Every structure is written in C-alpha cells, then in structure tokens.
C-alpha cells in the first residue's frame, strides 16, 4: 500500500457524529404490516376517508408486488431480502399532543435537535439567515417554525398530517399526482404506511423569503421511516427547500422509504437540496440505514424549473433517483449530486430527466467518490420524447477512486425519439492523482489537507448549488470522512 493510500485509509475511518439515541417515551405499534396497521396509522392521524382508501389501494398493490417478489433487483446494490413483517410502522414520542406552539415541544426533543445543530427557536441564527424548519422525529412532525410569519404571505408550510386537515383540497389535488401510489415497490409501500412529512405551498407570484427545511431523525429501534413531502409552487412562485437526515448507530439495518413530490407551474422554480447523512453502518458494514427513496418533480408549467441538489454521504445503501418530468414548454430540470461511499456503503443513485415538452432543458452533474470497500453507481435516464423539439441535455458524471478496494460504475440510459433534440453525456473515472497530491505537499500542505482540498475541488460544481448554510455542512460532512474542515 502506498503512503497516500495509507492516509486515505486513516482519513476514511472517522466515526459517525450523530449516532446518539434520545431517551424518550414512545408510542409504538408492534412490528408487522397488515391492513390493520394501515388503518391504525390512518386512525392515529384522524385522516379523512378518502386518504384511508388511497392507502388501502396502495397496500393492496404492495401485497401483489410482494407476492410477485417484485422488489427492484436491477440496482447494483447487494443486501439480504427485507422482511416487511419485522418493521415497526409507527413510533412517535408520547409527549406529542396536538400540534401547537413551539413552547409545548418536549425539551428533550429540543435538545436532541440542538445536538444535531438544528435550531427550533424562531430567532435569527448566527449567520443572520432565517430558516423555517419542520422537524420530523420517527413517525411524526414534532415542530414547525416560522409558520405564522410565512402564512402572512400566503405560504403554507406545515407537517403533512396538519396539511391533510387544514388544506385537504390541495393535498387531495396533488397527492400521488407526480408519484402515483403504484409507481414502484417502495413508493407503493410508502403510500400505504406513510406517517408524516412536510407540506409546502407557495402561492402565485410569491418568492418565499426564507429557506424552508425539514429535518428527519430516526430515533426508535426497529422502526422504518416513511415520510412524504409535497411541495407546490404556483405560477411565478419560488422556493428553496432543504432536507437533512440523521439516525443513531445501531447494529441492525433500518429502512427509510420516502416519497417526495414537487409541482411547479408556469414560471415557478423549486430548488430542492438534500444533505443525507443517515447512519452509514460501521467500518465492517454492520448496521446502517437502507435509504430507498422516490423523488420526482413535475415541471408542469411553461418555463418552470426544478433543481435537485444532493449530497449523499450517509446510509448503508442508497437507492435514489430524483427526477424531473419536463412537461411545460421551455421548462428546466437540474440534478447536482455528490455521493460518497466509504467502508462497505453502497450507492446506486442518479436521476431521470424525461423531456416531454418543446425546448426543455436539463443538466446533470454527478460526482461519485468511492473509498474503502464502497461501491458507487451512477444510473441516469435521459429520455427525449417524440414532441420534445429542440430539447437539450448535458450530463457529466465523474468518479474519483480513493483506495484500491472500491468500485465506481456509470450507467447512463439515453433514449432519444426526436431528431431535433441534443443529448450530450460525458463520464470519467480516475484515481486521486499522485502528482496533484505531491504538488500540494511540495507547497507545505499536509497530505490530509491536500486530499480534502482535492476532493472538495472535485465536488465544487455541485457544492456551489447548495444554499450557503448547507454548503458548509456538506463540506464538513465530506470532511468527516476525509478529514475535518478545509483550509
């Protein structure tokens, strides 16, 4: 092993920093999946009949898929079959009563989020930037900040459960309209048993004055987290939304199967950023979250824009393809991704850009970093439909290998049915350059700093798409695996 390999090995063995458990009394249903459980979740949420029916349809379909063993096997990830009867489908802190003011939130929960670096207090953060937070703890939302201030501008931001009661028409109109309950195996499971999530609605012409965010925390052992996020931007509206996730360190794997639906109407723009830091398992590959997520945005309006930015450093297994349906003429889809797999982590991630409307455009920038025994796959579909005249796509997928036992794979799918469409795809795979490392060291930088600097440079095109606050967090996260801060 060369000297730099030894450094990489040392750097990539940093411990997970968010692995603590909050000791709090939980209201938990026994493990197992059945129609009763679906009904129970719906009852606990006091849901209207139509939603229960929708869940039951999804449940019936999921049972069929399960009987057909239709769980997806095409991804380049390897894990034992999941027993869906072993999972707990609902677990919530007992202290949660009605969703009320922030003062009523259990101090234990507040301190949990504080420890995670998330402020649930409605005051300006040190940086001076306001961020509205919806905090989801296991199966429920425990607090949402700045709701009132946002409502003054007509912006609706609350937990999904609350939205079902307060804005049933909006939820009914858009739920499942981008990701139907039958869309795929995991989306189907989610549709049957989802417990909470976030809802945001930006009315016509409004530019959301602050970042909206949801912070997901898995706490209870043996539970799965199945949340659902729905964001609708009306004509000319703009919103930037952030999502973060962590979980305790446990030896068994836990399932997280979320669904995110975005809808952008004429001239609307949604920027959706994720910093995913679920527990990745230990250095021998034991434990960690299975992150099987369906995210899709529909650019329904003319000149609408949906932009996905993700930094994926956590999870034992990631299976995730945030996608854009480009329906509106001149609409734009973007996907910026950094995925880092270390130790025994596996990631099969990418995007789908489905060009349907005229002059639609999409950009894909994917940066994969594989270290340790990590396996990393980019899988992306670019489809130009027969009516996508003048549509354009540009994709670039670069992989960086750190160490000699990892793997990086690239699977683009380009399907073009229109002769005026233009598609360009480029991909490279390389090892972190010995020459680059030496150059930095000759200028006095330590090898750790040099690697960290080169990795951050490699990811720069993606990191700069993140809102400022998240960019710092993302850099730090990359740093946790590859040494602390930069510079």
């Amino acid at each position, binding site marked *: 092993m060369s000297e730099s390999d030894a450094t990489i090995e040392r750097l990539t063995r940093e411990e997970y920093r968010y692995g603590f458990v909050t000791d709090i009394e939980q209201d938990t249903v026994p493990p197992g999946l059945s129609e009763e459980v679906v009904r129970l979740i719906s009852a606990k949420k006091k849901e209207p009949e139509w939603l229960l029916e929708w869940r039951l349809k999804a449940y019936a379909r999921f049972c069929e898929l399960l009987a057909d063993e239709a769980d997806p096997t095409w991804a380049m990830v390897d894990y034992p079959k999941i027993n869906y009867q072993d999972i707990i489908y609902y677990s919530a802190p007992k202290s949660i009563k009605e969703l009320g003011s922030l003062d009523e939130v259990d101090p234990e929960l507040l301190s949990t989020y504080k420890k995670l670096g998330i402020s649930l207090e409605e005051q300006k953060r040190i940086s001076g930037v306001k961020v509205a937070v919806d905090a989801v703890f296991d199966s429920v939302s425990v607090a949402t900040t700045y709701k009132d201030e946002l409502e003054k501008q007509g912006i609706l931001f609350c937990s999904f459960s609350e939205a079902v009661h307060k804005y049933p028409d909006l939820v009914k109109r858009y739920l499942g309209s981008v990701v139907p309950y039958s869309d795929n195996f995991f989306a189907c499971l989610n549709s049957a048993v989802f417990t909470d999530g976030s809802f945001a609605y930006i009315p016509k012409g409004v530019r959301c004055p602050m970042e909206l965010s949801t912070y997901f925390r898995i706490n209870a052992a043996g539970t799965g987290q199945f949340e659902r996020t729905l964001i609708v931007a009306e004509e000319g509206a703009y919103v930037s939304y952030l999502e973060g996730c962590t979980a305790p360190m446990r030896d068994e794997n836990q399932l997280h199967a979320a669904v995110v639906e975005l809808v952008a109407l004429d001239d609307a723009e949604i920027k959706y950023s994720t910093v995913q830091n679920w527990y990745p398992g230990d250095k021998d590959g034991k434990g960690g979250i299975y992150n099987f997520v369906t995210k899709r945005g529909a650019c329904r309006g003319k000149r609408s824009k949906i932009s996905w930015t993700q930094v994926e450093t956590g999870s034992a297994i990631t299976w995730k393809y945030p996608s854009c349906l480009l329906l509106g003429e001149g609409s734009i889809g973007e996907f910026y991704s950094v995925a880092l797999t270390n130790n025994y982590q596996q990631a099969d991630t990418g995007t789908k850009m489905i060009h349907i409307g005229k002059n639609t455009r999409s950009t894909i920038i994917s940066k994969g970093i594989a270290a340790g025994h990590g396996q990393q796959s980019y899988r992306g579909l670019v489809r130009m439909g027969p009516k996508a005249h003048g549509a354009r796509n540009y994709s670039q997928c670069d992989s960086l*290998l750190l160490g*000699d036992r990892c793997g*990086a*794979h*690239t699977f*683009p799918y380009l399907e073009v*049915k229109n002769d005026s469409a233009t*598609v360009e*795809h480029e991909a490279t795979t390389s090892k972190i350059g010995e020459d680059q490392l030496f150059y930095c060291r000759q200028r006095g930088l330590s090898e750790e700093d040099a690697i960290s600097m080169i990795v951050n440079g490699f990811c720069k095109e993606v990191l700069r798409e993140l809102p400022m606050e998240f960019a710092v967090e993302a850099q730090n996260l990359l740093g946790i695996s590859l040494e602390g801060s930069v510079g």
Partner: protein
Amino acid sequence: MSTLGFREAFEALVPDAAAPAWLGDLRREAFQHFEAAGFPTRRQEAWRYTNVSAIAETTFELGSDAGEDASVTRAVNGAAFGETAATLVFVDGRFAPDLSRTLPEVATSLSVSWAGGSTGRPGPLGELVDPKLHPFAALNTAFLCDAARIEVPQNVTLEKPIHLIFVATPGARRVHHPRILVGARASSRATVVADFVSASPEVSFCNAVTEIEVGPGANLDFVLCQRETSPTFHVSNLAARVDRDARLATHTLCLGGNLVRNDLQVRLVAEGAECRMNGLYLGTDRERIDNYTEVCHEAPHGTSAELYKGILAGSSHGVFRGRVIVAPDAQKTDARQQNPNLLLGAGAEVNSRPQLEIRADDVKCSHGSTVGRLDEEAIFYLRSRGVGTEHARTMLGQAFAAEIVDAVPDQGLRDALLALITARLWTTGEAS
C-alpha cells in the same frame, strides 16, 4: 415464442459424411441450450430495446446449397474489392469451393480439413461464446456443419486481407448460420473481412458466430461488414480473447438489414493487450440496429478505445450499449469509449447506454455519448456555396462516417463502403 420450427430443421439436418463424431455431441448440446433458453424477450435487460419476436414467429428454411446459382455468383462478384490473400465463400453456411480461393493451412474451411482427414476440434470453436448466455449462438452451433477457419502462423504477416463472403441461396425465408474461427498466433499480423451479402430480395435470417484468438504480440484487424440488401434479420455474436501485448481492431459496419443485433465481447486477458472497436450503424426506413459491445480488462496496462457512430434516418431505431469492465487487478487500464449519434429523420430514435464498471483504482476511463442532428450552419454554408441541400446533407453524413471508414485497413474496401454509405444517405436525403 416457439423454438419448435427449428427442432424439425435440426432433426432433418444431415451431417457432412466426413464430419467427426464430436460434432454431433456439440450440436445436440447446443440445441438443448437453445431450447431451454428460448428466444430472448424484452424483459431481459440485454434485449430491452430489441424485440426479436419477428424472428421467433417466422419459420425459416435452411438452404440446400444445390449447386451453382447465378444470383449467388452475382452477389459474390459484387462483393469483391481488390486483391486478397484468400477469398472464401460460404453459401447457406457451407463452403463453396468453386467460388473460393483458399490459402492452404491459413485460410480454409472446416469441411475441407475434414475431407483432408484432419478431424480434431479446432482451437477456439465453442470456447469463447457461451451458448448458455447467448441463445442465438447456441442455435448457430446446433446447425454447425462447416466454418471458415483462419490460422495465421507465428511471425507471419499477411499483406493482403482474407475475404470471407457469406450468402444464402435465393428462396423464401432462408436462414443460414455462418461460423468464423480465427487464430492469430504469436507476433502474426493479418486482416480478415467477414462480408455478409444478399443474393435475393426475399426475407432471410443470418445468424453468425465468430470466435477470435489473438496470440501474444499478434496484430489482427477484423472487419464485420453487414451489407445485405434484402429484408434481413441479422444476428451476430463475436467473442475474442486478446493475449499479452497483442492488438485487436474490430470494424463493425452495419449498412443493411431490417433487424440487426450484434454482440461483441472482447477480453483483454494479459498485460499490455489492446483493443480498438470501431463501429458504424446506418439505419433507414424502419430498420432496427442494436449493437452491444463489452470489453473486459482482466490484466494490467490494457488499453481499449471504442468509437461507435450512428446515423439514423427515416424511422429507424439505433441502440448502442457499450460496457467497459475493469477487473480489480487490471491497474493502469486506459479505457475510452465514444458514441456519437446523428438523427436524420423525424421518426428516428436512438438509445445509447455506455456503461463503466470499474473495480480497480489506478485507471483512466471515460465515455461520452451524444445525440444530435446535422449542423444547420454547416448545411447553410455549403448551400451558400451552391451545393444543393440533399447533397450537403449527404456530404456531412459522409464526413460523420469518414472517421470509421478511414480506419478500415483496405483501400478497395474503403472505397466500396464509402460508395454504399453515400448511396444510402442520398436515398434518405431524397426521402425526407
């Protein structure tokens, strides 16, 4: 989809009198594999974009190779492109000595070897293409009754190419199963052209298998030229093994056929092995052309460079899937892959799927894939100089194809290919 139609033909096939005993076992075993697997369906990832039910639903007949046929002779003469080291013609999969000129010991046929009393199983036969993975290859082996056999001895350089011509006799729904075996021994150098032509305007099915071994330090150019003019189903499986410091260049030219599927698999098994894979697919009307290539870097310091270009006019459909696999020990691999496509028709469609699977860390790999149309500015420029639109389009199409044609190692063949490409582009230009 049924494999039944082929069972009758399989049982009816009368083996060559001089054929060795092992052939029967090989064929029976292969047919069992074919029956067990059946025809591939679109549910299989490897066949996701190509539906072969039209082949499965047709009852094809094996030609009987009944002596001289004027149209066969015409087709064979039409394929000639200049001086060759040997020309071997196979009609309905069987060697046609009257139309051929062999180079004893180097370029001959299995049947000729058998007649000469040499009945051992030749080198790569059945070793490189796995009949369990490729039902069409299994079908080919099941109907194996002859094969082109090229053996370039150690240190020998053949200045002129070896020309292999495969044709079916005229008749309704003809099928033939060409088989090609190439062994380029250590430090030899040769060019082999496998040419597929039509002798009649009727529907036919050509199901070819090629197995190539390139020995240490050898240098082989292999041209796969599909220029059938009739409505043809063409399925080809090519597998090659490239040894230490050896080089293999394949040139795949898909210039005809209603449904064409090429599988090309190259294994670089020892240090310093190199392979170039050039390909051109030109589709018109409702033609479907599906190219799957796989290069497997199994040893350090290997190089692969792949360039497949597609021109799709009318409502044709092109598919490219290129896999580059770098095994854990294949350090210092340098692998490049490019797949540019040109769409010339409003109904034309292309699917491009380059894939990199990399398990070694000290490598340089890249791929690129583009889909676009002719540069309107360039067309306008040519028109402003007095060149007609159709002519301008043809010119630019030729220019796009030139990179692939220019790499073909024989001038006579290059000229023939260019003329064919021009003719096809010209017709598509007029049609649109």
